[in-house]
């Protein structure tokens, strides 16, 4: 197994404070377009800031901007982690 696959994880499972690179958005055209316009697209470096309890929104930082993403959407964003958690 290659390293890349090993650290691939959904945004919801990622730990707060960790960084990584967006690998894939598993969604339709609409979702991808909306996320893209907020700077979230494959190849982008992101840092997870927090996630709210009870399947609340996930907040990440991308291009020095905080973006809050609903749990379901965040679940469709795959991230390649920098570090093993």
């Amino acid at each position, binding site marked *: 197994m290659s390293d890349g696959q090993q650290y691939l994880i959904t945004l919801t499972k990622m730990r*707060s404070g960790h960084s990584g690179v967006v690998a894939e958005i598993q969604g339709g055209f*609409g979702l991808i*377009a*909306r*996320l*893209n*316009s*907020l*700077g979230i*697209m494959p190849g982008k470096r992101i840092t997870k*800031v*927090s*996630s*709210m*309890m*009870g*399947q*609340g*929104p996930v*907040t990440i930082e991308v*291009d*020095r*901007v*905080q*973006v*809050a*993403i*609903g*749990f*379901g*959407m965040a679940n469709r964003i795959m991230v390649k982690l920098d570090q093993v958690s």
Partner: protein
Amino acid sequence: MKNVLLVGNPNVGKSVVFSRLTGVRTTISNYPGTTVSYTRGVLKLGEEKVEVVDVPGIYTLEPTSEAEEIALKMLQSGVTVINVVNATHLERSLYLTLQLLERGLPIVVALNMWDDTKHQGIHIDVEKLRALLGVPVIPTVALTGEGIKELVQNIPKATSPNISPRSRDERWAAIGDIISQVQHVDHRHHTWLERLQDASVKPVTGVIIGISVLVFAFLVIRLIAENLIEHVLDPFFSGLWAPVVLRLSAILGGSGFLHDIVVGKVAGGEVNFVESFGLISSGLYVPFAMVLPYIVSFYLVLGLLEDTGYLPRLAVLMDTFMHRLGVHGYAIIPTLLGLGCNVPAVLATRILETKRERFIASTLISIAVPCAALQAMIFGLVGRQGAQYVIIVYGTLFVVWVFLGIILKHAVKGFSPELLIEMPPYRLPPWRVVLQKMWMRIYGFLAEAIPIILGAIVVINMLHLFGVFRAIADFTGPVVNGLLGLPKEAVISLVIGFLRKDVALGMLAPLGLSAKQLVVASVVLAMFFPCIATFVVFLRELGVRKMFMSTVIMILAALMTGGVLNVLL
């Protein structure tokens, strides 16, 4: 007349640029979606007059939201576009810029928030960006007015370089290429404001910050309002205005129809400003001495909250909870606006994505969120009976808000879309913006409320004279008395509540209600029909059918809650 459209992503400062260009004041806040409708103004360009349109923020010309669809329709040939770009988020802003260029529209780019790039260690080569895009690029700081003159001078120079349409991926690739050539970002450590930003959306610290902010806001609102009433307005009315009223009362002969309309019921050489119900007594005292202080303090605090950039973070914090009410966290922003006035609140529900969410949010606001005018009267009248009664009123409305939300969530077909918002950076609120916005809102209150309040007082006096009220009261007596435990005359107040809630609650004052009756009446008044202004906006925004549904829910909920309170208390 030529058309200039201000187009750009949400929260980049289009409305600030608009105000600078046209002198038309608009509401400016630090969160995406402040502007929900199209504001027009006129700019003098040498001899020529140009119409400028402030377009709500959009991310893309691929229509993914209602705002984007409408914006798309406006971007027809013949318009010039000022593409307002947030200089600190150049990369994501350029997507819309490229799309605009591909449409062949003449464009000027305003590189706004230019001052922030310096603080954030972002270096942008403006000359190179100009060359790569092929259109004028002007750095601006709209808040201070820097660069606006140059922007105006460049409007006639707007060009449309020939660019063939690209696919989405090609566009992002082109942007990556441009960014690598024009932008350089220094690495730097988080500032304390940024650390506070992070803490605001973390579960534990976020809740602590959220509760502190709301409690503090509430305390400041009360502190300012009560001091204004106690030390400024009450002394003015009782010391300076009362003699004038009494003098006029004597001139008008002490009684009679005209006397009662103008001065109201004055007995024993004293003016009871709350109960007399004349134009120059209650007609001025209620709006200026009871309501205005709360309007001033509420909008000052709301303005500060809006301009710091905290509200979207409150939305994140509240998201899970708000989903239980059938809407997502962003609905908290219209709800908070509703605590000031329900009219802009219903308009602000446009920031929600679906019709279903808008219906739920608007219905909840018009039923369970009391406006500042009504709240001021609740504090003024119910508060006299003891703080615990005010708490019961608020507690009841909160419970209704939650229960009704849960019911609507299950009763209205569809699902709640998920939250997806860009969070503005924290800013120390620019005092000029805060004060200007507060003044606009206070002026709006005065301009709309005073004529209606005075008109209502005339109408109330006339109807009293002709015995219309007695007829209504006798007719509805059984319901009002049996179900709600109120004297039958209280129904008049519910009817007047359709005009203005503050006057309506004021009408209860002379009835000599017990504390319990006052609580029931306040809650029913808050929940029953929204005032006519809200009614009209609701109708326009959501249509007859939804308005009708909402009204039925409203009447049922108000009577049920009032009945339950009557039994419980």
